[in-house]
């Protein structure tokens, strides 16, 4: 629960910040000596602004390779099988801890990242990486339901509406979150490591999953937009992006009242990264007030960047959107995913395989 407590503090601090005025801002400049080098980024899908990478390439005179993944587990598997050459990965909190423990991350040199000063202080030193040895926050957000407002004119307030909906539903391929939600209903710790509880959560989901047509690999918003599903369990920003894209009110995002997952994604450097120095320059670039604000304005996730918020670079609309910056009382109701250890991880993975097998039965 540590992360949600942190975020409540953050939310309380944010209130006056949103009123702050635009401040003069020096554009980010790239340190000398990186021209002609290459940076390879491995990030979640639909998780960067259109110009973030091109601007960085121009500022530093470098080339960026940009690949995407759809879940912490998929990224982790790729790095565990031997880093194919990425310099930047974006793991969520619990995954940072797991990767650090397995020595899959390179320690950051905070001297090279002066913009660390822009990060909301309460978001530094999170439980998963107390010294920020391996990670600095990228964005934070929640898991909830994106739904068609035509099918649900009165909105969605409970997971039961999702389980009982008579129409196609897409779940999210985020195993710990999905099992965590089931744990909530069963009265267990969302991060339970108990084999019986994990299996009970699996069975609960199988029972409630009769209307699930697909377990989407972070592309639920696309299925929703195409009309293939009425509900997609998704990360908040992804749903908000499609509403923004279509300039319509056809889709809405809600966090069911029973609770859900809140997460902080982080910039980290994986082991065997070919160019860790340039990676740290990139982290510094992302943490710049203007760059960070542009990012948030584009992908509709919550910024961990105090300077971005206080400078007024972030759109009012975003700062005031409860789907992006949820009110503190709602955050208190959310759980964070922690590192459950290798043994529980295996149990969870097995349970998830079994769930996939039985959902389609």
């Amino acid at each position, binding site marked *: 629960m540590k992360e949600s407590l942190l975020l409540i503090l953050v939310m309380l601090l944010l209130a006056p910040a949103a009123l702050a005025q635009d401040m003069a801002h020096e554009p980010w400049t790239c340190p000398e000596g990186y021209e002609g080098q290459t940076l390879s980024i491995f990030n979640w899908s639909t998780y960067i602004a259109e110009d973030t990478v091109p601007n960085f390439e121009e500022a530093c005179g470098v080339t960026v390779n940009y690949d995407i993944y759809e879940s912490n587990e998929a990224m982790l598997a790729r790095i565990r099988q*031997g*880093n194919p*050459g990425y310099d930047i990965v974006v793991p969520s909190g619990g995954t940072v801890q797991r990767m650090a423990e397995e020595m899959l991350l390179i320690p950051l040199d905070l001297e090279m990242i002066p913009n660390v000063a822009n990060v909301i202080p309460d978001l530094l030193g999170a439980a998963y990486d107390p010294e920020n040895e391996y990670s600095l926050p990228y964005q934070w957000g929640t898991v909830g339901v994106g739904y068609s407002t035509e099918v649900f004119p009165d909105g969605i307030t409970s997971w039961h509406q999702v389980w009982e909906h008579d129409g196609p539903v897409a779940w999210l391929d985020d195993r710990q979150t999905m099992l965590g939600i089931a744990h909530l209903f069963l009265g267990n710790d969302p991060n339970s490591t108990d084999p019986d509880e994990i299996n009970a959560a699996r069975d609960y989901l199988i029972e409630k999953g009769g209307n699930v047509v697909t377990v989407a690999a972070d592309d639920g918003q696309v299925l929703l937009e195409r009309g293939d599903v009425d509900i997609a369990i998704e990360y908040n920003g992804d749903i908000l992006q499609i509403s923004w894209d279509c300039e319509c009110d056809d889709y809405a995002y809600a966090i069911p009242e029973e609770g859900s997952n809140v997460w902080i994604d982080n910039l980290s450097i994986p082991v065997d990264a070919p160019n860790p120095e340039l990676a740290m320059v990139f982290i510094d670039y992302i943490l710049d007030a203007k760059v960070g604000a542009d990012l948030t304005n584009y992908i509709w996730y919550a910024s961990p960047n105090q300077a971005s918020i206080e400078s007024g670079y972030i759109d009012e609309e975003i700062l005031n959107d409860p789907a992006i910056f949820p009110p503190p009382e709602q955050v208190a109701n959310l759980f964070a995913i922690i590192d459950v250890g290798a043994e529980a991880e295996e149990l969870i993975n097995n349970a998830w395989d079994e769930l996939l097998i039985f959902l389609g039965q």
Partner: protein
Amino acid sequence: MRQSLINEGAMGRNLVIRRLGGIGLWLNPLFAYFFLWAPILILVLFSFNNSRSVASFTGFTLTWYSNILNNMMGAESAFSTEIMLNAFRNSLFVGTVATAISTVLGTMIALAMARGRFRGKPLLDGLLFLPVVIPEITQAISLAIFFKVVFDWVALMSGERIFPGFHTIIAAHVTFNISYVAIVVRARLADMDPQLEEAANDLGANPWQAFWRVTFPLILPGVISGALLAFTLSLDDFVITFFTSGVGTSTLPVFVYGLLKLTVTPEVNAISTIMMVLSTILIGISLAIQGRTASRA
């Protein structure tokens, strides 16, 4: 005549069956051609639709095509025109190198099988046959694990880490292409009269001369067909490339896969249409080349 006297009922039934069969023999191809072409034509049609819907055609537009050229492809900046062109270049590079290597290796083994005298040919037959019939995903994961094992071992021995990239993709493509090239070239060799080479030898040509002056020109159409087949397979491959590619070496199919997953926009239909037109042109060229070499041979 005799039959109709003996078995008039059967004859009548026969006529009905024949009539029905005749209709079926026309209906089936009609249905089959419709089934084969409708999806593609609808994809093309909706790339010109002026609304985002694929449920009904509401009017003609070129917006989606101009959007592709102007880099306006929706929310995912990872899918810019530049990245698409880069993926296309990667595909051409991988395809060309893999085709060159596999054509040489495939032709060599086809010649060896057809003309050489050594034991274990049935075994070799099996070895050549297996890559064709083995499921793609099995081959993909076997190569992924293999490269991991090799790279881990090299890192352990030398401390230097090798990253996957073009070399791993090309190695994988060559592996599945060799068999196809060998099959095509062997078919050509089987049609060829071996006495021609003997005649060349008798006339005093050394084996090297006999090969380049006699055998090679004769099997050239087969070699070209094999190479074209290899190039096509290479350009089309997704699964094996997906498992063996490294950073920044995504080929066009890998790019397209991400695109299909993460965008709903009609631009995808437009890109698909462009790719179809390109591959049709490619076939046209290859057929022309084949036709010319075949008529010369």
